[in-house]
């Protein structure tokens, strides 16, 4: 069985780790070939091109982390019409374009956790800003919506949300945007970057500007990439789910559905190897696990892993 693991763009650490997980799942299942692929630029058009050639190769299943939930729906539908199992993971496709979607974690939980980490890092008073990926990113925007809900709660009343900027998941652009935030908001105390590229860039900017201890960075990042910044004090606490597990689950789920053992419909609980069972909820959405929190106490250990 050939399962394609399609990512937003090649060369991003998070996805490289996910591919590792996918390979692991394939080995475990046996008889599965994982095709790890993705476009050079993180655009929907380029991703469609990749999926198109996967359809032409008549692969058995495609698991996609989508650059655009709507743009990929019709190509997803086309793939399903040709008898290919399509699921989305990490960043979802609109419902009609896939069988099921695997969120890395519960969306509401990710949103609220980010605000909590911010509070734990900067204290409950002061200004903070968001440094996101592209302004169009499906998952980031959903998380930001949830952050707004959480932030409205009274315990955050003294934390002022002053800005939201976008670094397009490009390191240099994110760095620039972080510098811009410092200029525009001289009293800034925190940055939430719900993207593994943005969080490192923001931490780096804090260090380079000598703002360690004054501005705190949190968000979603890989421990291996954030280790130095936790040590420096630019980041106190941040989180992520295990990308290896995510890639593992995506491939495992694809296999289970493509082999016909499961349908991937709401209400089903699908066994996924070492990850246990993943249960599918409303809109055929499923969540993998709660985000894991990293700080100085455990960063060394996890930096070795992903």
């Amino acid at each position, binding site marked *: 069985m050939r399962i394609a693991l399609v990512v937003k763009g090649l060369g991003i650490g998070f996805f490289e780790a996910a591919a590792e997980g996918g390979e692991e799942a394939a080995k475990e299942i046996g008889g599965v070939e994982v095709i790890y692929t993705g476009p050079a630029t993180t655009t929907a058009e380029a991703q469609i091109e990749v999926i198109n050639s996967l359809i032409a190769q008549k692969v058995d299943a495609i698991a996609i982390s989508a650059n655009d939930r*709507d743009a990929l729906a019709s190509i997803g539908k086309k793939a399903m019409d040709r008898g290919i199992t399509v699921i989305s993971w990490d960043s979802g496709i609109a419902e009609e374009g896939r069988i099921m979607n695997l969120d890395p974690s519960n969306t509401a939980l990710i949103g609220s956790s980010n605000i909590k980490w911010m509070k734990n890092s900067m204290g409950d008073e002061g200004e903070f800003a968001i440094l996101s990926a592209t302004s169009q990113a499906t998952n980031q925007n959903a998380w930001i919506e949830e952050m707004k809900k959480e932030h409205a709660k009274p315990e955050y009343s003294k934390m002022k949300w002053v800005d939201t900027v976008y670094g397009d998941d490009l390191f240099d652009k994110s760095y620039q945007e972080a510098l811009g935030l410092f200029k525009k908001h001289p009293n800034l105390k925190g940055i939430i970057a719900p993207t593994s590229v943005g969080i490192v860039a923001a931490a780096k900017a804090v260090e380079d500007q000598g703002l360690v201890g004054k501005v705190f960075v949190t968000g979603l990042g890989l421990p291996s990439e954030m280790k130095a910044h936790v040590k420096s004090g630019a980041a106190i606490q941040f989180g992520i789910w295990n990308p290896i597990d995510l890639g593992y689950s995506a491939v495992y789920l694809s296999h289970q559905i493509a082999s016909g053992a499961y349908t991937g419909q709401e209400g089903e609980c699908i066994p996924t190897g070492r990850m246990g069972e993943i249960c599918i909820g409303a809109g055929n959405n499923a969540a993998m696990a709660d985000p894991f929190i990293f700080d100085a106490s455990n960063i060394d250990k996890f930096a070795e892993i992903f």
Partner: protein
Amino acid sequence: MSLIPDKPPFKLLDILYKKEFILFVVLVSILIINSNISPYFLDLYNLIDSTFLFSEKAIIALTMTFVIIARQIDLSVASIIAVSSVVLGYTTSLGYDTWLVLLLTLLSGTLCGAFNGAIITKFAIPSIIVTIGTMSLFRGLAYSFLEDSYYNKFPKLVGKLGGGYLYGYIPYAFLTFILLAFVFAFILHKTSIGKKIYSIGNNPDAALYTGIAVDKYTFVLFTLNGLFSAIAAIFLSGRLSSVRPNIAFGWELEIITMVVLGGVYIYGGSGSILGVVISIFILGMLSFGLGLLNVPGVGIIIFTGLLLILSIGFPSFVRTLRRKNE
């Protein structure tokens, strides 16, 4: 009356030196190699589907051919697509009638093109510079209008145009491209309009002194390029069923590559639609073939770059060598 022949005596060898012939040979070799390497290549469905990936760009490549033959260049086409797509999404969201939506979309692209044309002709600034500026300006407008929102609802007709097939086989976008290619080939090679465009590209000053309205032609060509970007925007938005400000990012270079690989001289004055059409198929089949081998997108980029340089460099290198031997 003296009898001067129109052309020198026909020699079979001359065909070998024709750019179109060389391109054709390249295309055939790619087809042969592809079908040998991948068992999935020679599949009617697959081939038809692969046209979706280049038809929108190809439509713009046609007008871009005119623009480049007239010694100009337009780097803002992809940004015009962004503007037009936003207009398409916005007018749909206002609940306008389908035809009005399409009309306003086409109008927006045309206006962007006209803006380029007006600045280039009124201020006499090289188009490469002007369109570097409007490239940011237009895309910036799309960003500032959409901010972090997006449109995913379009009239049914748009969706059908973008993703649908005529008689279940021929994609509308591809069909449009092929029909337009015939029209454009006719205009360029058989009409006085085409000949004037060649004159302008060859020597704009002489064309002006001959009474050809150089500025008017330049203006119209840029406007047309805008219009066709809007047409491409309709197909693309329909296919993606989503509009985001970064739509068609980086397409301008891909479109120019199509034109230049097709043998259109980048400094104007020479080139043919046939060459461009063959080059579009070369690029389309090349990237489709490499995609079937799961060569990542960047691999395709490298191949395209090499093809671009070698297709022009090799013949001129051979020519230089032969001249040295003379």
